[in-house]
Structures are given as structure tokens and as C-alpha cells.
């Protein structure tokens, strides 16, 4: 069963239905109509790491586990074996986990999904698996074989690997593109609707169907009140607690391609003002390399008056993710700020894979990139390092993983994050959380430790 001690006891406070008619046991039936404000309809095959997209995608493609007080198995269980060296983690698909074509989840599905991650623009999340010895050849071999379990031998001790496997980017998917399948609470039925799928080991969800509906911001409140929508994703809630803010946005630049003066302007930016004006909540300025919940913000120079404009000091191209509405607003704001300081910035919108490609092939000098960080400091740093410079992973992680005590490890991670911030080609900007608004008739929705909306056990009071 999926209910365990929750790290964040937010379930009860999210969408509690008060004393409305219903019953003490979950009511069966109804359609879970979810409004999508500025979001595409979730597809199993697409990388979905923004909190709203990841929350919606879980309805059609569940992650391997849910991170709550610990890793709660959803599709697979991970167990640690002390073998030779640093030990190994064995991932075993749970009995009953089946894709919509009826075939059982296998180890090779997991390996193939992870191999496709880089092409989908989620290469930074391979940082979560960096402690696995010879990851590339191992996944290649596992993807080709049909074995019951996926064995991950560790190159060095890494106590947080099991928790990292619950990251939504590591969701198992079979196939690619439009034909991609995940194992979701709901699957496409003959008539095109999304009906309950019995191939989930924790059992059938309570609502009979789910539907995704484009939602206009002004209509959302009314539709939630009338029960036409049960939740709206992509719009900040008013009463719900914000939950963890772990979707972190950086300006990543290619060393030597952005003028030093421009970087100095960015480093002195008033992040508080940027977040208040251009990033819809829940969001917080991120002066350090990791979000404030993971890293006490280090001292940062107070925003001073911009220096005198330097005519023709330099121009560079800044890419951003067209799928994230706040990216455009922030990019334009940075463009204005840099223009005032005498730097000309060309903006270039693209989709996620295109953005990563352009960063890699050098056609972009800088880019706004957002990643969903795990709520644990060491894996979070691994993702940030993979984003900045994957070569740093093997240099930094072994010493961190060797610290057994979680508290001491977190302290060391924080120290390293502060030291590395000076050298990494990343300017941290802000971190944000899930934008969701829940209707009064949706009960037992909760948040996991990533801050995602978990609707696995949710039900409708009418």
C-alpha cells in the first residue's frame, strides 16, 4: 500500500472538503477533471520536470517510487546489498506493474528510459545515477537483456541512491514519442478517455476517469467552485501551503562567452525584485547554488547602482525554455538590466531538447535552465554539477558519499556548494514550487517530498 508516514503532513490540509456530504471511507467514481493552465496535456514519453507537469504526468506514468518519509515503492522496490566494494542497489519491479499493452514492467524498460533521458533534455538528472559504476555500458547492457532485476553496482558509497530513484525524471517509460507508454493510474481506453488502469500494484484509483481540460486563469476559480474542475495546475493556489520550493532556475553560460562585466551585473541582480515581479508564486530568490531549503543563503553583495554603460562592451545570446512562461519574463528582464549596463542580449526561445542541444553545440552563449532538485542536499548537488559540468561529478561526489551521517553529509555538501559557486558557470536565480489550486470536492490529495501533487489516493466527495 502506498500510504506511509508522510514527511510532509500536507495531505490533510490540501483540499480538505470540510463537512460536505460524503463518508469516512473514500468514495468511488466520478471524473477527476484537471484544469491545465498554460501546460500541455501530459504525455508519458515527454520529460516533465516542472512540478505541475510532473504531477500531471504521474497520472499516466507513475515514478518508480514516491519520496515521502522514505522511498515508498510504487512500481519497483530498491534494496541495498553489501557486495564487494561500495555495494550495490537492486531494483525489482513490483508484482502487478503492467504497461497498458498488458506486459509487465521489466528491468530493461527502466534502463532504456534512463538512456533516453539525455536526448529528451534531461541529461542533468543522470547526475542522480552518477555514483553507479560504469553507468553508460551498464545501462546499454541492461537495455538489451531481459532480466528480472536491474543491478546498480556503486563506484563509491552513496547512501541517497534509493531516494534519488523516486525522481520523476527517472520514471520508467516504454517506447518513445507519441507511442511511449508509462504505467499510470489511468490509461487510454477504446473511446479515447483515460480510464482506471488495473496494472498499478497499489490498486485502482478511486475516481473512475481523469480528464485534462485547458483552463483559463479567470475561469479556474469558478470552475473549481462548481466542481466542473477538481484541481487546476499551473495557477498558484491561495490557501494551500506552498510546499517545498525545489524547481531551481539558473543562468548557465559557456565559459568565456559571456563578458565578465555582464556576469558581474547578473551576480549583483536584486533577486527579490526579480521573483516578486516576474515569477508567479510560490517562489523564492536563490542566492546560493541550492534552494534556500537545502542551503542557508550565503551572503551576497547588496544590489548596488549599475555601473556606467559600456558602449559595445559585448553581446551574447541567451536561450530559454519556451514551455515555461516565467522563463520568457525573466529572460526579458535580464535583457533590460544588461542593456542598461551596456550589454546587448539576443533572446532565443526553444523547446527543452533544443535548448540542451544548443547549449552543448555552442550555438547559445547562455541559457536559462530549470531543474527539479531532490529534497536531499547530496543528490541535489549531483544534479547541479551534472548541469554545470558533468566531469565534476566523479571529483566531488565520492568524498560526500563517504560521510555516513546524513547531518554531517548535508553540512559538507553545503560547504562545497558555497565553494563551488564561485567557479561553476552557473548563476543561481530562483527556486519555485508547485502552482496548483485544489477544489473543495477533492479529498486526500497530498504532496511528496519533491513538492509534487500526489493524487494516487485522492477521491471526490460528489
Amino acid at each position, binding site marked *: 500500500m502506498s500510504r506511509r508516514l508522510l514527511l510532509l503532513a500536507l495531505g490533510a490540509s490540501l483540499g480538505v472538503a470540510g463537512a460536505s456530504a460524503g463518508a469516512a471511507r473514500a468514495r*468511488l467514481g466520478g471524473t477527476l477533471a484537471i484544469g491545465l493552465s498554460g501546460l500541455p496535456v501530459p504525455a508519458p514519453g515527454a520529460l516533465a520536470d516542472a512540478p505541475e507537469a510532473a504531477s500531471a504526468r504521474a497520472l499516466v506514468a507513475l515514478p518508480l517510487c514516491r519520496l515521502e518519509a522514505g522511498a515508498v515503492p510504487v512500481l519497483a522496490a530498491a534494496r541495498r546489498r553489501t557486495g564487494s566494494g561500495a555495494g550495490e542497489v537492486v531494483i525489482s519491479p513490483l508484482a502487478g506493474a503492467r504497461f497498458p499493452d498488458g506486459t509487465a514492467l521489466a528491468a530493461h524498460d527502466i534502463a532504456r528510459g534512463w538512456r533516453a533521458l539525455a536526448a529528451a533534455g534531461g541529461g542533468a538528472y543522470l547526475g542522480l545515477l552518477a555514483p553507479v559504476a560504469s553507468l553508460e555500458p551498464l545501462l546499454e547492457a541492461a537495455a538489451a537483456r531481459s532480466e528480472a532485476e536491474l543491478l546498480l553496482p556503486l563506484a563509491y558509497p552513496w547512501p541517497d541512491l534509493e531516494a534519488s530513484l523516486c525522481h520523476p525524471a527517472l520514471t520508467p517509460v516504454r517506447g518513445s514519442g507519441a507511442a511511449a507508454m508509462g504505467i499510470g493510474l489511468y490509461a487510454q481506453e477504446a473511446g479515447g478517455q483515460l480510464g482506471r488502469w488495473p496494472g498499478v*500494484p497499489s*490498486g485502482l484509483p478511486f475516481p473512475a476517469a481523469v480528464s485534462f481540460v485547458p483552463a483559463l486563469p479567470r475561469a479556474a476559480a469558478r470552475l473549481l467552485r462548481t466542481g466542473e474542475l477538481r484541481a487546476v495546475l499551473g495557477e498558484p493556489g491561495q490557501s494551500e501551503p506552498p510546499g517545498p520550493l525545489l524547481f531551481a532556475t539558473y543562468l548557465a553560460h559557456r565559459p568565456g562567452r559571456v563578458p565578465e562585466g555582464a556576469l558581474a551585473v547578473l551576480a549583483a541582480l536584486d533577486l527579490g525584485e526579480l521573483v516578486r515581479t516576474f515569477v508567479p508564486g510560490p517562489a523564492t530568490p536563490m542566492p546560493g547554488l541550492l534552494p534556500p531549503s537545502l542551503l542557508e543563503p550565503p551572503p551576497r553583495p547588496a544590489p548596488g547602482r549599475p555601473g556606467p554603460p559600456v558602449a559595445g562592451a559585448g553581446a551574447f545570446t541567451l536561450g530559454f525554455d519556451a514551455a515555461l512562461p516565467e522563463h520568457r519574463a525573466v529572460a526579458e528582464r535580464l535583457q533590460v538590466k544588461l542593456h542598461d549596463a551596456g550589454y546587448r542580449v539576443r533572446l532565443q526561445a526553444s523547446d527543452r531538447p533544443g535548448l540542451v542541444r544548443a547549449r552543448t553545440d555552442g550555438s547559445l552563449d547562455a541559457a536559462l535552465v530549470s531543474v527539479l532538485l531532490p529534497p536531499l542536499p547530496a543528490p541535489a548537488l549531483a544534479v547541479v554539477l551534472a548541469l554545470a559540468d558533468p566531469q565534476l561529478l566523479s571529483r566531488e561526489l565520492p568524498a560526500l558519499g563517504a560521510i555516513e551521517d546524513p547531518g554531517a553529509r548535508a553540512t559538507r555538501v553545503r560547504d562545497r556548494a558555497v565553494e563551488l559557486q564561485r567557479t561553476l558557470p552557473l548563476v543561481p536565480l530562483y527556486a519555485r514550487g508547485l502552482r496548483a489550486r485544489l477544489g473543495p470536492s477533492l479529498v486526500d490529495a497530498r504532496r511528496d517530498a519533491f513538492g509534487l501533487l500526489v493524487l494516487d489516493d485522492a477521491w471526490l466527495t460528489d
Partner: protein
Amino acid sequence: MSGAGLAALLVLAQATSPGALGALAEAVAAQVHTAGAEPPLALAVSAPGRPALERAFATELLGRLTAAGLAPRLLAVPDPERAAREQGARSLLRLRLDLAGTLVASGDVLSTWVNFWAGRAQTRSASPGAAVAAEVSADATVRLLARAGEGLSLELDPEPLARWPVRTLAVATGSLDPDGQPLVAVLTEEAVEVRGRDGRLLARRSLDALPRADPPSRDPFGTLCICQRRLLAFSAGRAAGEVLELSGGALVPREALARPVLGCLSARLEASLFPGLARFVPSSGPWPSLPGEPRAWGGSVRAGAPGPGVLVLLEDGTARWAEGTGGLHALPGVGAGAAAVDLAGDGAVRIAASSSAAAPAVDRLRLLAPDGGAELASVEVPGRILQVAAWSSARGPEEDLLLGVWRTDGGSELRLARRGR
């Protein structure tokens, strides 16, 4: 009293045998007969705050009115005159019982015959009504019955008896060893446990050996009962259940259980689960007859005295209490946990039930009259009450209540509620 021009009559009846209640019923029946009431006669009795006394007097009076050929029927509705007319009764007897040193029954009897030619006009029959009043000295039975429904309150023990990081599925009480020691058995998502009066763990058997249900129920759900010193456990997350025996401090499997069993009367009351859902339908055994296709989300069987019966909790938030004597009562506003209990130890069985609120952070344990569901007492319980079981108290004939409560953090606990002092 109502109705100008009605003749008043006061009869003082001295109670000897057959008891004060019988004498009062006798006196009232005589007055009704004298007033010329015509059958069928509708009867409405109220005794505010004294449900047991009300029930007992109604029973006595119904017997005497039947003997007098008045074909009485009992009404328990707020507007008895209207109900009597709608049901085609020709006369109505309305009575109120008061106990203040003596027991007084007072009220009136009137004709409820509807003149067809009056159309929609609200008219009363031309035949005269009469006031009815009688008084007897209260005897021991009357005082006991009056006390039975009076001043009942519920009290929750401040500390839970046990806690789990997972959900409880079912709670049962009874004896599992030859010395008859009362024990509590709890089915959780992971195991069957037997605990003592202080909540101490005596034996545990993991569910791991049982095959998983495909699909399992997402809602933690199961049945657990004790029949002939054996524990019958069935989790909706598993494809089969087990019959367990407490032997040498361990729960030893004796038999596989193909279906959930709610309890035992003359035979096992077996149920069928809806695949993947926390709902069942009665399948075989001495189940009461329930109309339609009942989808139940809970139930409990009371095998012993007083008041054996079967309680079925339906997913619409109502319950059916089928007494061993054959009566079937509908109770509204009942959640997923309820049980019949003799809370006061006075031989009167009442229903203790969780509330039907959707997902309360603080639930209410309610004590209901078994006929009609009038609330007699309640107490707040943090969390959601999903299971309720009656438990013989260490203090005497009173019974306590064991509650399986789901906490908001995903875990659960076993709590004890008892009659308040």
C-alpha cells in the same frame, strides 16, 4: 393537551402486578377504548431523554391496543398527525411520558379519518377526540429503564493503546484461548496482531506469505472476526485470508479463507469483495435480507447477549441494524466504522458509529439509538475512525469501545472509548 371541548379524564392507576409500566399501558388502553377510537390506530410516544423507557412503554401499549382490536402501528416521525393521515390510520394516539416521582402518560386521541369531499382543505373529523392521562407510581423497572438512556456520555482515553506506521484494516475482540481472556485482534496493512487489555503485543503474523490480490484494494480494507476461539482474517490487498489459532504465543494458520467473513452466528457470514474496491456484498450465511444490491464498506456481527444482531454499513452513509429478534432498522449518517455495544451494562444495545464526514481531521464517535438512530452521546476523536468494536470491560457488565483510527500522517492507532463518568 390539545383540542378545545375535549373531555378530560384522569385515572389514577395503582400499580401492582403486571408492573407499573403494564398498569399504565392498561389504563391508557382503557381510556382509548372508552373514547371510541377506530382501528387502525396510529401511536406516537415520546419520552424526552429516556429512549429505553419510551421503547418499553410503546411495546407494552401496542400489545394491549392489539388485544383491544385497534390494529395499532407505531410512528416515529416529527409530525405524527400528518403521517397517520398519509398512512390511512383512522385515529391517532399521541402520548408523552414524564417521570417525576410518579410516571405520567398524557396526551390525546383523535380521529384522523380524511373526508374525501373536503378536497385539499385541512379539516378534522367531526367525531370527538379525547384527552388521555394516567399516572402510576414508578417501580424498579421504570427507574432502571429511565436511567438506561439518561446521562449517557462517552469518554476517550487520552493515550492510544497501540500505534502503527500503516493503516488498520479491521479490529475484532473476543477470546482466543481456553481461559476466556478477552483479547483484541487488529488487522493492519502488514500483519494480524493480537494484543492484551493494556495494548501489549502478544502475537503477530505477517501477511507476507499470502498471495497479493490482483488488483488489490487501494483503500486499506479487510475483515477480521473471532469465531470459536479462532481468528478469521482477510485483507482486500491479498487474494486469500487465513484462519489462525493462538497457540503457544504464536498465531498458527489452520485453514485458508477464500472469502472475507464478517462474523459468526449460526454459521459464518461470508461476503464477496468487488475486485480492487473496498466494498463487499453479502454472499452466504445468516445475513439479514437487505433491499436492492447493497454495496457495503463495513459491518459487524454481535453474537453474544444482550442483543445479538448484524450491522451492515452501506456506502451511502446509512447503516442497517438487524436485531436477532428480526427487527431491521435504518440508521442515517453512519461512517465506515460502527458496532453494537452495551455501553452502560444495562442490557440495552446501542450503536456506536463514526461520523459520515468526508475526511475529518477530527472525527466524532457517536452513540445512536438502535431504532431510528437518535444521537444519545458523542465524543471527538482526532483522526478518522474506520473501525469500531465493542470490548467487555474490566469493570463489570459495561462494555468499552475499541477504535481503529487513521491519523493524518498516514499511520493509525488503537484507541479506547468508554462510558463517561
